[in-house]
């Protein structure tokens, strides 16, 4: 049963991240997932200090808010002439450092293990179950990750046109009256929420990998956005399941193996994708070279 839960939860995380990742890489914001996953640390600490517990809900709220706040700071800096990559780096390193300092300062009050927060391990999800009265509802992570996936799916389906247009042609979107900034922050909020909800159960590194690798892989296979979204989900799920199947015999970190698998899928596509792969490009180039003189 445990392998089923792990693969299911991994696939749900991969699907959420796969959808959002497509928007992120097309908007040239791929590093945002990494930035947010670091930046939310002070949010977790604050939530912990205020609520005094390690309950998931306050942490989810606190971390998501700080994640959103960090994207607002980044946006503000960009609008004031700070280079995009610098705005991102400065913000997330500063917030992360603030979080570490807070943990050191309140070290007596908080029993918050840094490793545990940052490197949650998907292998343990089945032990942490949700009890509703006497009823065992299954792994708590499943509800969290599944809920976030449904929420993401709902929002994207509702506003698909708007998201698509603001991604491909923000100027046109603004011209036809779509509130571009609102959809930017809505997307940022979704990325924050997904990052926070997933990484508590599966670890930060897996979220970052799933936000980028499957979407980038899909981008090599197709030029059509619909297809890219579906392929991204598919590659994400393949990475999750393949990674788990790889991790079991190796007796290695499951999250690490899933990230590695996503990398392997990308490498394969980088070489062999039908139109944008290296081999196919090389083949076409040879065709031009060998053209009769």
């Amino acid at each position, binding site marked *: 049963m445990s392998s089923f839960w792990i693969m299911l939860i991994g696939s749900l995380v991969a699907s959420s991240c796969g959808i959002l990742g497509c928007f992120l890489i097309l908007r040239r914001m791929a590093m945002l997932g990494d930035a947010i996953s670091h930046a939310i640390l002070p949010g977790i600490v604050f939530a912990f200090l205020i609520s005094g517990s390690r309950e998931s809900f306050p942490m989810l709220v606190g971390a998501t808010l700080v994640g959103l706040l960090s994207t607002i700071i980044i946006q503000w800096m960009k609008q004031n002439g700070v280079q995009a990559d610098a705005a991102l780096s400065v913000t997330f390193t500063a917030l992360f450092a603030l979080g570490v300092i807070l943990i050191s300062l309140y070290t007596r009050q908080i029993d918050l293990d840094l490793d545990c927060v940052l490197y949650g391990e998907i292998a343990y999800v089945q032990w942490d179950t949700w009890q509703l009265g006497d009823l065992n509802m299954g792994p708590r992570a499943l509800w969290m990750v599944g809920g976030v996936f449904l929420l993401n799916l709902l929002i994207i389906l509702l506003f698909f046109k708007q998201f698509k247009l603001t991604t491909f042609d923000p100027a046109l979107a603004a011209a036809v009256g779509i509130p571009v900034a609102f959809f930017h922050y809505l997307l940022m909020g979704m990325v924050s929420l997904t990052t926070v909800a997933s990484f508590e159960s599966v670890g930060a590194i897996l979220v970052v990998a799933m936000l980028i690798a499957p979407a980038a892989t899909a981008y090599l296979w197709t030029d059509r956005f619909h297809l890219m979204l579906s392929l991204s989900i598919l590659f994400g799920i393949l990475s999750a399941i393949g990674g788990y199947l790889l991790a079991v015999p190796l007796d290695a970190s499951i999250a690490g193996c899933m990230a590695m698998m996503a990398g392997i899928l990308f490498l394969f596509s980088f070489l062999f994708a039908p*139109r944008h792969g290296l081999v196919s*490009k090389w083949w076409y180039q040879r065709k*031009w070279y060998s053209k009769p003189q």
Partner: protein
Amino acid sequence: MTPPIEIQNLSVAYHKKLVLTDIHYTSPKGECIGIIGPNGAGKSTLLKAIMGLLPLATGTVLIDGQPIKQQRHKIGYVPQRESVDWDFPTNVFDVVLMGRYGKLGWFRRPNRADRQFAMECLEKVGMAELADRQISQLSGGQQQRVFLARALAQEAQIYLMDEPFAGVDAATEKAIIHVLHDLKQQEKTVFVVHHDLQTVEEYFDSLLLLNRKIIAAGPTKEVFQIDRLQQTYGGKLTVLSTQANAFMVR
């Protein structure tokens, strides 16, 4: 006498698409040559192919009878203005001095002679008094003139200019024409990618009409004809008056 540029059977492919095909061209020496064609005709690509910045699908390019690798020092280049970030922390004089870097080679720094030469180049484009100006504070025309001065600082034999006249003010236009005139007197060969058909006859001795392949090449008087232009631009050309050679490109 070897021609400054000799192109044989050149074709260039981006991914699967051929951007340039079957280019055969031998350029005259000491002339100012306009490269004319619609958007996407491969004008900038041709310049980059000549400079060896792109892999060639087929064909060869010879500069003074030799491949580009041995002849880089003979080429001066004026890129499009948008090709760099103008917020870079440097000033006008420093950018022009970059033109000397090729002659300096590795490790060496520009000396007084290089500085003096760079200053003279700035004077030629009428920007000497702006030498200390931050490049972020320049107008579009001034940016263009800085790039022109940088190319002059290269002391090349052949100059390639990518749309130097695009969107510049009258003063800059005058400065560029002045420089083109100077270069011609020094018997240098200049290629200019150009858009404005009204000024073609005034500026260029020869033309190269390009749309993926060479439509026509030769002295302006012979080549600058309605039928040839229509062939080059397809349906995008509107003839306003045949006598005055007035055209409009859609």
